[in-house]
C-alpha cells in the first residue's frame, strides 16, 4: 500500500501559499507558515534518537507542525497532556522509549514538568529558523501515532497505529462520499490524546482545506458553538454528549453552512439527533463508530429526518467501511450468523492495530485469527439487521465512556485502593440530564469527598477522576451475591446534586 496521504500533505504545505491551513486561538495560519514551522521542527526531530516523538498537547500551530514534521521525517508522535500526573507521563515516556518531548508554549504546568523530566524541548515560531520541509516515504508497518488508553490493570495501554492503518482509514473515508476540498473548514474539537482528532487535522491538510480548533480558556461546549458559527464550519465530527449539553439551547443554533455533521465516540440517542437536525438543515448526518484499535472509525450510518436507523432509541452504527470486516461471536465463541442475535463485535481489515505495545497478555486476549483473518475483539455487544446494518447494545465488560473518553472502571478502583489499601471501592458510570458521569463508592463512611479527590490527583488524569465520591457502609450485592452496580448507579443518579 502506498502512503499517499503524506505526499498530499507535503504538496499542500509546499504549494498552499497564503491559503488558510488552520485557525487556532482565533488566529489564521497559512500553508506557507505551517510549511516553514514544519521544516524548522523537522531539523530538530532529525537530531533526536528515538522513533517516537513526544508532543505536549497545547493548542498551538507548533503542536500540529511537530506532528506533521514527525510524520514527514518517518517518525511517530505520542500526544502527552501537560496536566497528566507526572507518574503517568513517566510511564508513557518509558513504555514508548521517548527521548524528546516537544512543547510550543511556556506555562506553569510545563515548569512543573521540567522538575520531573529533562527531555523537554521548546519549539516556538519566535525562536525557530525559516526552513523548507522534506519528506521521506515511511514503510506502511511503521507507527504513525501511539495513543495510551485506560487499562484494566491500572497501567495505560499503548495502541500503535501504523502509516498503513491510517492510509487504510483515509481510503475508507474517501468512499463515504463527502468529497472534501479546499473550501472546506473542518472542526477540530478533540484533545490530541483522542484519536478522533487525527482525521480532524489530517484530512483538511490532505485536501487543502483548513481545520479550526476550540479556543482555550472558554467552556468547551460554548467554544464549540462559537467556532461552528463564527468560522462557518462545513465539516464537523463531534461526540454526542456535546449536543446533549447544548440541548436546552438548540433553538438558538442555526448552522446552514455545515454540510457534513458526524457523531462518534459514544452511543448517539435518536431523540437528541432529531433535535439537532433542524439546527443543520443542509448537513448530511452520519453516526460513525470504531475503537482506537481500528483507527479512528470503521463504520458509518447515514441518518435522514424520519429515517434514523435505531434500536430502542440508540442510533445504529451502520455498515463497515471499505476494507473492514465485522464478525459477531456469541458467549461460547461461535460465529453469530442470524439476524437480530447479539454477539461481541470483532473487527478485521487494514485499519486494525498491529497490537498493544509490549503487552503480550492483552494481545493474546484481544486478537485472534479466524479463517486466516486477524480480528480484534472490541468488547462491544452488537447485532445485525436484515439490511446488514449493525446496532450497538452495550459493553461486555465494565468500560464506560465519559464525553467519548474510554475509562476502565477497574483503573479507577485500583487508584482508589492505592490511597486506601484496605477499603473496597467500586466505580460506576451513571447518567444525569442525558449526560454520563463517573462515581466512586468507597466502603468507609468517614470519607471526605474533597480530600479523596485531592489524593486521586497525582494518580489519574482529570477525565478519569470521578465526578462524585460516596462513602458507604456496605457495597450492595444483588440476588446472585454479585456487586449490585445497578443499585449504585441509581444511588449516584439520585445523589448527583446532593
Amino acid at each position, binding site marked *: 500500500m502506498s502512503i499517499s496521504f503524506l505526499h498530499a500533505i507535503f504538496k499542500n504545505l509546499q504549494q498552499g501559499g497564503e491559503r488558510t491551513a488552520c485557525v487556532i486561538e482565533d488566529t489564521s495560519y497559512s500553508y506557507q507558515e505551517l510549511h516553514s514551522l514544519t521544516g524548522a521542527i523537522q531539523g530538530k526531530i532529525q537530531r533526536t534518537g528515538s522513533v517516537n516523538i513526544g508532543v505536549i498537547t497545547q493548542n498551538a500551530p507548533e503542536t500540529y507542525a511537530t506532528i506533521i514534521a514527525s510524520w514527514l521525517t518517518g517518525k511517530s508522535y505520542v500526544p502527552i497532556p501537560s496536566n497528566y500526573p507526572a507518574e503517568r507521563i513517566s510511564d508513557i515516556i518509558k513504555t514508548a522509549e521517548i527521548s524528546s518531548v516537544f512543547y510550543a508554549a511556556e506555562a506553569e504546568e510545563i515548569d512543573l514538568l521540567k522538575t520531573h523530566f529533562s527531555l523537554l524541548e521548546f519549539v516556538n515560531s519566535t525562536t525557530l529558523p525559516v526552513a523548507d520541509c522534506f519528506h521521506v516515504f515511511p514503510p506502511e508497518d511503521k507507527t504513525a501515532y501511539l495513543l495510551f488508553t485506560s487499562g484494566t490493570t491500572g497501567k495505560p495501554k499503548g495502541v500503535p497505529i501504523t502509516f498503513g492503518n491510517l492510509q487504510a482509514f483515509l481510503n475508507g473515508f474517501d468512499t463515504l462520499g463527502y468529497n472534501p476540498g479546499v473550501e472546506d473548514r473542518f472542526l477540530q474539537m478533540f484533545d490530541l490524546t483522542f484519536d478522533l482528532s487525527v482525521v480532524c487535522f489530517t484530512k483538511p491538510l490532505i485536501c487543502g482545506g483548513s481545520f479550526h480548533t476550540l479556543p482555550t*480558556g472558554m*467552556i*468547551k461546549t*460554548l467554544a464549540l*458553538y462559537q467556532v461552528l458559527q463564527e468560522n462557518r464550519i462545513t465539516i464537523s465530527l463531534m461526540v454526542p454528549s456535546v449536543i446533549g449539553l447544548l440541548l436546552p439551547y438548540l433553538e438558538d443554533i442555526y448552522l446552514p453552512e455545515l454540510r457534513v455533521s458526524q457523531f462518534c465516540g459514544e452511543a448517539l440517542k435518536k431523540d437528541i439527533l432529531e433535535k439537532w437536525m433542524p439546527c443543520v438543515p443542509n448537513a448530511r448526518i452520519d453516526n460513525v463508530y470504531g475503537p482506537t484499535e481500528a483507527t479512528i472509525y470503521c463504520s458509518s450510518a447515514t441518518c435522514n429526518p424520519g429515517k434514523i436507523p435505531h434500536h430502542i432509541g440508540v442510533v445504529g452504527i451502520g455498515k463497515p467501511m471499505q476494507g473492514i470486516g465485522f464478525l459477531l461471536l456469541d458467549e461460547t465463541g461461535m460465529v453469530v450468523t442470524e439476524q437480530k442475535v447479539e454477539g461481541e463485535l470483532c473487527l478485521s481489515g487494514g485499519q486494525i492495530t498491529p497490537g498493544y505495545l509490549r503487552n503480550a497478555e492483552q494481545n493474546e486476549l484481544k486478537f485472534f485469527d479466524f479463517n486466516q483473518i486477524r480480528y480484534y475483539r472490541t468488547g462491544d455487544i452488537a447485532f445485525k439487521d436484515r439490511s446488514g446494518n449493525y446496532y450497538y447494545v452495550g459493553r461486555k465488560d465494565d468500560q464506560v465512556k465519559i464525553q467519548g473518553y474510554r475509562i476502565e472502571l477497574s483503573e479507577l478502583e485500583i487508584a482508589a485502593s492505592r490511597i486506601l489499601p484496605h477499603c473496597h471501592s467500586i466505580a460506576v458510570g451513571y447518567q444525569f*440530564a442525558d449526560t454520563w458521569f463517573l462515581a466512586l463508592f468507597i466502603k468507609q463512611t468517614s470519607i471526605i469527598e*474533597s480530600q479523596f479527590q485531592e489524593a486521586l490527583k497525582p494518580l489519574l488524569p482529570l477525565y478519569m477522576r470521578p*465526578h462524585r465520591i460516596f462513602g458507604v457502609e456496605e457495597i450492595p450485592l444483588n440476588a446472585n451475591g454479585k456487586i449490585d452496580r445497578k443499585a449504585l448507579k441509581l444511588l449516584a443518579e439520585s445523589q448527583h446534586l446532593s
Partner: protein
Amino acid sequence: METCEIRLQLGNIFDSVFHCGNIEITDELTAEQVEKWDSLTHLTMIAAVESHFGIRFKLKELIIMKNTGDLVKLILEKKQSV
C-alpha cells in the same frame, strides 16, 4: 433582589454542582479556578441557576459571560425584567 443575596444563593448552587467545599463567590471567580468546573458541570450549574431563579439564558449570553460577576449581573437583569 440584591447582588449579595444572589451571590449567597449562587454559593449554595456552586457547592452542590462542583463539590469542592466552600467556594468564595467573587466577581472574578472563573472556571479556571475551580477544578471540577468544566463543560459538563458548567451547563449543569447554569441549568440549576435557571431553575432556582426562574429565569432563562440565551446561548449568546452564556458565551459572553466571562466570570461569576457577569453571571450575577445577568441574573439581576433577568430578575428585574420579570
